[in-house]
């Protein structure tokens, strides 16, 4: 089953303490939907552990709390986890989904992960995340509207909604609480709602990956074969770094080929004969060995 990584640093810092407590709900939600959960709580929320968990083959979704700025998202004791321009962050982002509860990371870091790192979807805030707490009542009712609204993204994505739907549901939840909360909370809820950002593909959900347009075009009547191709791509090719590199070249080359196939007569047939069939032979040979 697919893996969800939840980062919950907690070293007595108030923001992380509250955030970590509320992110327990993501773990419950993920387990309800039968995901494998890697809970990185407290000292486990280090760069080394996050990278280790995110490099596992079944990892698809990251949800985490931590301090941050425009370029960096941090973990336990503000150790940088993901940052703008980092090669490892870029590698991990590819085809994955992220939800950051962190100040200002949406300004640059999250955008970079979606655009350069090619993450499918990244949710973040482009300003300081503000909330109210009653320290004598942990985790209290005053903090609830803030975290409940934020966690709407996790709930929706884990239930299978698209990123666009999750983003809209989150903003609607903020509005719901804005209408029902006292003035003390309302002004901060409006602030958080306005600064909630999403980067990536709105129509994609947590299971989405980049589709192979050649096989989709040529094998649209052969659903079983198409599924075999997808399985081979996910389970064999994308698990190796050379495979991922070759796939990125293949994705670039496939666009003009598909344009050629759709605009010329018999183009589809040619693609099937010279690209899909040889690949199919390779797949069947690999399977036999």
């Amino acid at each position, binding site marked *: 089953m697919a893996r969800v990584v939840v980062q919950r640093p907690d070293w007595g*810092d108030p923001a992380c303490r509250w955030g970590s407590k509320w992110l327990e709900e993501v773990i419950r939600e993920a387990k309800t939907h039968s995901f494998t959960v890697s809970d990185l709580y407290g000292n486990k929320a280090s760069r080394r552990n996050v990278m280790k968990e995110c490099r596992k083959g079944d990892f698809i979704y990251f949800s985490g709390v931590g301090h941050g700025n425009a370029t960096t998202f941090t973990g336990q004791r503000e150790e940088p986890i993901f940052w703008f321009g980092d090669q490892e962050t870029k590698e991990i982002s590819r085809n994955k989904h992220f939800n950051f509860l962190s100040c200002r990371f949406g300004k640059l870091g999250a955008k970079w992960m979606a655009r350069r790192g090619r993450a499918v979807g990244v949710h973040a805030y482009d300003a300081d995340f503000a909330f*109210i707490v009653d320290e004598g009542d942990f985790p209290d009712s005053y903090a609830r509207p803030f975290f409940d609204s934020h966690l709407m993204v996790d709930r929706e994505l884990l239930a299978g909604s698209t990123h666009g739907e999750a983003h809209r549901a989150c903003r609607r939840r903020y509005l719901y609480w804005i209408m029902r909360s006292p003035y003390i909370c309302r002004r901060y809820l409006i602030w958080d709602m306005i600064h909630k950002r999403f980067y990536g593909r709105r129509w994609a959900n947590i299971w989405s990956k980049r589709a192979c347009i050649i096989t989709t075009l040529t094998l649209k009547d052969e659903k079983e074969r198409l599924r075999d191709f997808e399985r081979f791509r996910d389970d064999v090719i994308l698990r190796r770094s050379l495979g991922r590199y070759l796939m990125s070249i293949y994705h670039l080359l496939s666009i003009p080929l598909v344009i050629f196939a759709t605009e010329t007569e018999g183009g589809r047939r040619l693609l099937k004969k010279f690209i899909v069939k040889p690949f199919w032979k390779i797949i069947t040979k690999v399977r036999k060995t």
Partner: protein
Amino acid sequence: MKREDISDEEAIEHFRKRFMRIPEEERKRLKVIVGKKVYSFDEILRHMKERSEIGKIEIEIEKEYMRWLSRRKR
């Protein structure tokens, strides 16, 4: 209402009016957490008047709230 339309003074005055209506006990008890900064709700007005780092953020938050209210009225 445009972004430049609300002055800092207007935002402070808008906040002050609503702030006074909140029971003093509640004001003292509640804490605001903005990133790494933690402060009492009771201190906000002072910070706003001093234009400290917290005050500047709070003014921005109040302006955003005023803009949202004006949009809603329309």
